[in-house]
Each structure stands twice: as C-alpha cells, then as structure tokens.
C-alpha cells in the first residue's frame, strides 16, 4: 500500500461535481453518514499512478462557505477542522464552464483558507458551442492555482486531473484576497485577540456562529470576542461578496471572453414550454402519470417473478432438508420469505429512481419546483414533494426514499411523515374485499357505489396527507430560517453513468440498511404466527379431530391451521387487543389480521383466509370463499361481524393507520433516528383509531 491522500470535491450544485466524482472513482464508492446528521457522506477511492490512492470525498453542493443548511454546514465544518481525518490535502473546486464567475466566489474562499486547490472546469466540451474562450495560463497565474479542463460527458481531461492531484504539493497556497480589507479595524482587533490563528478562518467561525449555529467540531472559542451585531456582520459579509466579485470580474475581464451571439436558445425555448402557465402543468402531469404507470404497473412484472422465485426457493428448502424440523421451517418460511419481502421492493425503487435521477440530471426538477412552489408552500411542502406523494400511491418505501432530493430539511421531514397516508397498492386487496363485502351493489348516474367508495378512499388518503402536512407545518419548529432561492440550471442530457450509479446506490441502501430491520421484524412476526404456548397449540390436531369427526383431509387441515393460528402467540395478541378494538366493531379474528398486517397490509387477506379455514388464499375462488365466510361470520348473539358500520370502520382504519414495518424501517433510515417513525406509528394509528371509532359508533 502506497501513501494515501485526501481529496475533497467542492462545488456549486448542478456543476457536474458528482459526475467528476463518478469519473474519478467509478463504482469504488460508498455512501455513509456524517455522525448525528442526515447528510449522506459519499466517499470513493481513485487510483493514481505508482500505487498511490486518493480518498475522494464528494462534499454536498454549496454556493459559498456561509452555510444555510445542514448539508452546506458539513463543508465548512470539515474545512475549518485540520484535525478531521477527512481534512483534504487538496481541494478540487468543480465549476462548469458557463457559471465560472459564480463558482469562483467559492473558489476564492477556499483559497483564502490556504488549502491547496485545483480548479476543475467541467463541460469544457461546450466551450466552442457557447462561444466561451479561456486564457488558462493567465487564469492559473492570477488565481494561484492549477486548472483542469475536463468533460465528464466526453470523458476527457480526467487523466490530466489525476496527475494534478498527484502533484498537489506543488500547488500554491497563496490566498486570493486580503480579507482584512473588508474592515481593517475589525480584522486587526480580531487578529490581536487570536494572534496564532488565521484571520479569515476566525472570520468564518464568527459569521457561521451568527448565521447558522455553533460549529461543533471547532476548537476555537470565539464567543468572548463579539464586537459586532448580527446586522453589522451581515453587512460585512455583503461587502465581502462585493470585494470577491470585484476581484473575480477583474480577472475574468482578461481571462475570459464570451461571444454572446453564440449562446444557444435551448434554455429559453424549453422554458417557454416546460414552465408555461398551462402546458407546463400539463407536461408535469404527464410526467407524474408515467412515473405512476412505471411503478404501479411495469414494476409488477419483475415483482411477480421475485414473488414466485422466493416461493419456490422456500419450497425447495423444505423439500431438500425435510429432516431439519424447526430449523428448516425457520429458514424456509422465516428467513427466505423475509428476504423475499425485501427484494420485492427493488423493482419499484429502481424504476422510481431511474425517473427521478433523469428529472434531476436534466434540470427539469428545478422547473417543477418553480411551477409548484406557490401551491405546495401553503402546506409546508416543497414543489418536489409531489413526486414522493404520487409515488406513495404505489408504495411508500420508494416514495420516502425519493424525499432525499428535497433540500429543505423541514419540507423533507413533513413529506416523509405524510407520504404513508397516500393509498399504497398493498391497501388495495384489503379495500377490495371489504368493499365487496359491505358496500351494496347498485349505482348512481352510472357509477357503482363500490367504485365510488374506492375512489373516495384514494382521495381521503391524499387529502389526509395534505391536511396533516398543513398541521405539521405549523407545529414543527426549525432551528434555521430558510429561504427560497432555487437555481434554474441549464438543460442537459442526463449522463447514463450517473443515472445507473444512482439507481444502484439507492437500491443498495434500501436492501442493506432498511432491509435489516424488515428482516428482523418479519422473522419475529413469523415466529409469533408459527408458535404458541401450551397444549392447545402443540396438540392442535387432536383437539380439532375431537370437535369435527367426519371431514375430508383438506378441510381438516384447514381447520387445524385455523385452530393453530388462534392459539399461536399472534392469536393471543389478537385476543388480548379485542377489548381495545371492540368499540371499532372488530372481533379478535380481525385483531389477528391487524397484527399480521404489520408485515405488509395485504397479509390481512391471507390471515383471514387461514383463520376462517379457507386454506391458502390468493386464488380467485378462495377470495370468493373468504368473502362468503366473512359475510356469514357472526358474534355469539347472532349479529353479523361485517356490517356496513364495521366495514367502513375497517376501511378507515386501513386508510390511516401506520401498519407497515417496511415503511417504518425506511423512515428510520432516512431520518437517522427512531423518533420520527415512532411518532408516525403512534400518530397515524391514533388518527385511524379515532376515525374508525367515530364511524362505527355513528353507523352502528
């Protein structure tokens, strides 16, 4: 192993920083966490010559070293802390060729921290088309840096960049600006108070403290030094920005020429349609529709395949290791089915992120924010929240993951919290059977009551999501004041490599992080349903045979299964909660279904099938049999269990309750704490309980 060096990639959002990262590291990258916060930490290894390896850190996109979000704060925390293990030996500032001026602001700030800095100018292949020419030598001399012209699209300049990284020791660390010129008196007194420190670094610590919050991993204590009000500090920061732009403009005047006549009108042409007051919305609606189609319909093909594959795999385990007893059962029904229950989500996640990364990469997503901001901000949501909310109608898991693209933490959190209210496809089998059972046939102006009920449930889910967002927006407090400033990037053809890496990375995150929790809970649920205490569970066969003497073997087996489930641990839980769910109109059998639904809502149907001794559910005729059995189900006094009142109550419960362990697991992963999933579980279930209670008591 040769020497390792730390490289930090820094740059504005939308400059192709991640493309440069992907070009340098390929698939040698992993996503971790910064301790205590919800920002992804992307690291990768880049092989240089002679066995030298560079640890490349892709820092969150930022416009300057003055943080206004947690993501941006990561950058400044790292650059101010020389003791951090990731502190860069060399920083790469990635700019694109068209926004060089703005990117140089950040560049000069990093330079003033005296970190060896390379300026990477991406999309250099567009220079001729855009009529831009640069005097590289002059720029390098004036900026005291080395410049790498790269094109991640054409894959040029990457090798030269690697060589520059390798010779980082030769790069000047001379600052660009004399920052004390911002306010000489103030900076002099600052230097006097901390004679051993770099004055620009001190300035950053102070302004950061005033603007955003204490720098946590900072050894400097500037709290005693406070001679300026926040208002004055801000004025100085404005002055700093002006000074920096004066410097940058003077350099670009010599080093850059732009032939404006060459500017292609692609942006304005596309903007004219894509954010048009009418067509913009029509197009966005069509985009949402195709996302919905992909995850609701196309994804079912691979999902069915996964389903049958894991079913036959479980069967294979049982047949191949028949002597294994409980171990074989655990592997086949607990573990294999549990893993199957995780893998089944992959097609939807992959499809959704395929769309999202294309929308982000192309620059279209910012237009969506522009179009939707006015409507969504009223509910504390971002324009970007619509994509997760609509995806939630297929499945909440990929939808919660999709919120990652919302920059504002509060808007992201609210979206995560309300997405599970939208009617996911797992609710559908439950809705269908209960609607068929309790909603009468018949129609009004050509629309059947049953269809109308189903539609009402979809609207109810969406309405509840929006309504709770509105409430949460008023209840949740944020530490940081946030502003709406959205960059409208240039339209670009998405890079296939970036899209693929995003899809792979999101899928991996789900399988390995949320997957652990899902597997653990599904094994627990399986054990609870497959084992029970006492004689009645263990000798179910003889008990059942005693009660019903003359029956066919298959009927007898179904009855044994029902009897076993009744006396299993899950059955005991179902019976224990009966007093609690009685006011909602449910008996203990429904109770067992509710508990079992925690694995996935559609399990409700299968569980009821077992408990009503219908045998393995799923096929058409069995659904009919379950329906008949449910319709005939009565309490001891002869009153029916499933009436309009209890049916509506059950529908409402399923519409609002948080009954999905996989969703909880992914919320835990996305918010990095158990606090939010637990609040979600309690809050949603309470809403469900109250609504179901009111409905049942009124309709009864």
């Amino acid at each position, binding site marked *: 192993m040769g020497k390792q060096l730390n490289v930090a990639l820094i740059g504005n959002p939308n400059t192709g920083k991640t493309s440069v990262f992907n070009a340098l590291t390929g698939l040698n990258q992993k996503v971790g966490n910064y301790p205590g916060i919800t920002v992804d930490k992307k690291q990768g290894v880049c092989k240089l010559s002679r066995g030298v390896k560079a640890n490349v850190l892709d820092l969150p996109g930022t416009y300057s070293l003055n943080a206004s979000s947690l993501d941006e704060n990561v950058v400044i925390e790292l650059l101010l802390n020389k003791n951090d293990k990731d502190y860069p030996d060399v920083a790469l500032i990635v700019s694109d060729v*068209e926004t060089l001026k703005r990117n140089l602001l950040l560049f000069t700030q990093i330079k003033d921290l005296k970190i060896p800095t390379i300026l990477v100018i991406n999309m250099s292949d567009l220079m001729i088309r855009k009529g831009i020419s640069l005097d590289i030598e002059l720029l390098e001399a004036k900026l005291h840096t080395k410049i790498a012209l790269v094109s991640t699209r054409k894959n040029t300049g990457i090798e030269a960049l690697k060589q520059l990284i390798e010779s980082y020791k030769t790069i000047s660390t001379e600052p660009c600006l004399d920052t004390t010129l911002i306010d000489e008196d103030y900076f002099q007194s600052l230097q006097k108070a901390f004679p051993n420190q770099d004055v620009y670094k001190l300035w950053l610590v102070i302004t950061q403290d005033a603007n955003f919050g204490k720098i946590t991993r900072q050894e400097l204590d500037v709290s005693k030094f406070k001679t300026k009000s926040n208002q004055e500090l*801000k004025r100085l*920061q*404005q002055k700093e920005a002006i000074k920096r*732009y004066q410097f940058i403009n003077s350099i670009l005047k010599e080093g850059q020429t732009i032939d404006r006549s060459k500017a292609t009108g692609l942006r304005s042409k596309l903007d004219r349609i894509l954010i048009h007051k009418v067509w913009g919305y029509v197009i966005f609606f069509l985009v949402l529709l195709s996302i919905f189609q992909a995850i609701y319909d196309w994804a079912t093909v691979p999902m069915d395949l996964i389903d049958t594959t894991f079913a036959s795999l479980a069967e294979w385990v049982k047949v191949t290791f028949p002597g294994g007893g409980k171990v074989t059962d655990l592997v086949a029904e607990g573990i294999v089915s549990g893993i199957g229950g995780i893998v089944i989500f992959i097609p939807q996640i992959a499809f959704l992120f395929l769309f999202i990364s294309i929308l982000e990469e192309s620059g279209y997503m910012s237009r969506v924010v522009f179009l939707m*901001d*006015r409507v969504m901000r009223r509910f504390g949501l971002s324009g970007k929240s619509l994509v997760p909310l609509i995806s939630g109608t297929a499945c909440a898991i990929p939808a919660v993951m999709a919120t990652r693209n919302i920059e504002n933490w509060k808007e992201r959190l609210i979206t995560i919290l309300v997405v599970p209210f939208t009617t996911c496809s797992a609710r559908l089998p439950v809705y269908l059977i209960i609607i068929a059972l309790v909603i009468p046939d018949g129609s009004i102006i050509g629309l059947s009551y049953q269809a109308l009920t189903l539609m009402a449930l979809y609207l109810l889910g969406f309405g509840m999501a929006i309504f709770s967002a509105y409430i949460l927006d008023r209840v949740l407090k944020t530490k940081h004041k946030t502003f709406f*400033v959205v960059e409208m990037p240039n339209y670009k053809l998405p890079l296939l490599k970036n899209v693929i890496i995003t899809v792979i990375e999101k899928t991996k995150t789900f399988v390995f992080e949320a997957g652990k929790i899902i597997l653990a809970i599904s094994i627990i649920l399986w054990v609870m349903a497959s084992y029970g205490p006492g004689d009645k569970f263990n000798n179910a066969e003889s008990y059942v045979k005693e009660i019903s003497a003359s029956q066919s073997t298959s009927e007898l087996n179904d009855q044994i299964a029902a009897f076993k489930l009744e006396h299993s641990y899950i059955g005991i839980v179902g019976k224990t909660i009966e007093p609690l769910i009685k006011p909602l109109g449910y008996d203990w059998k429904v109770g067992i279904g509710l508990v079992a639904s925690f694995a996935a809502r559609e399990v409700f149907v299968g569980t009821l099938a077992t408990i009503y001794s219908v045998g393995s559910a799923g096929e058409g005729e069995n659904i009919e049999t379950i329906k008949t059995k449910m319709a005939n189900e009565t309490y001891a006094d002869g009153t029916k269990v499933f009436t309009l009142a209890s049916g509506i109550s059950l529908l409402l419960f399923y519409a609002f309750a948080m009954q999905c362990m996989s969703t909880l697991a992914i919320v835990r992963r996305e918010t990095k704490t158990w606090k939010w999933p637990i609040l979600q579980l309690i809050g949603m279930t309470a809403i469900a309980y109250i609504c179901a209670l009111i409905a049942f008591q009124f309709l009864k």
Partner: protein
Amino acid sequence: MRFTIADLKKGEKGIITDSSSENIPLKLLEMGCLPGNEVHLLQLAPFSDPMYLNVNDSFLAIRKETAALIVIEKING
C-alpha cells in the same frame, strides 16, 4: 418612486441599486444580487410568484416577497 424586482414585468430589466435589507438571504447576494448588477426577469409562475430571473450569469427563481426587498432602477426599452 422606489422600484423593486417585484415590480418588473416579464422580459424587463433593471440595475440593482440596493440589496442590503436584512431579510435578503445571504445566498442571494453571493449568487450575484449585488448593487450594480443587471437583473433580467425571464418568466413568472402563475400569480407572479415565484419569479425567474437572470442576474450575474446566474439563473434563479425567488419568491415575490424576497424580490420585493431588492431595490432596482428600471432600464427602459
């Protein structure tokens, strides 16, 4: 009369004269909303909010309430 970016109509331009209001996000200043720079209002969302501008070679969308804090001098024609 005091003009702000919020008073611009689609396609109009102005020169920023004052952006020192306390409530202007620093990010906006850093992206180039500084005195002397030209603002070009490119498009408006329904109800003129948000507003889509070009300033200092940056293309930005900001809300009307923020735009109303940035004082400009209108360029005619």
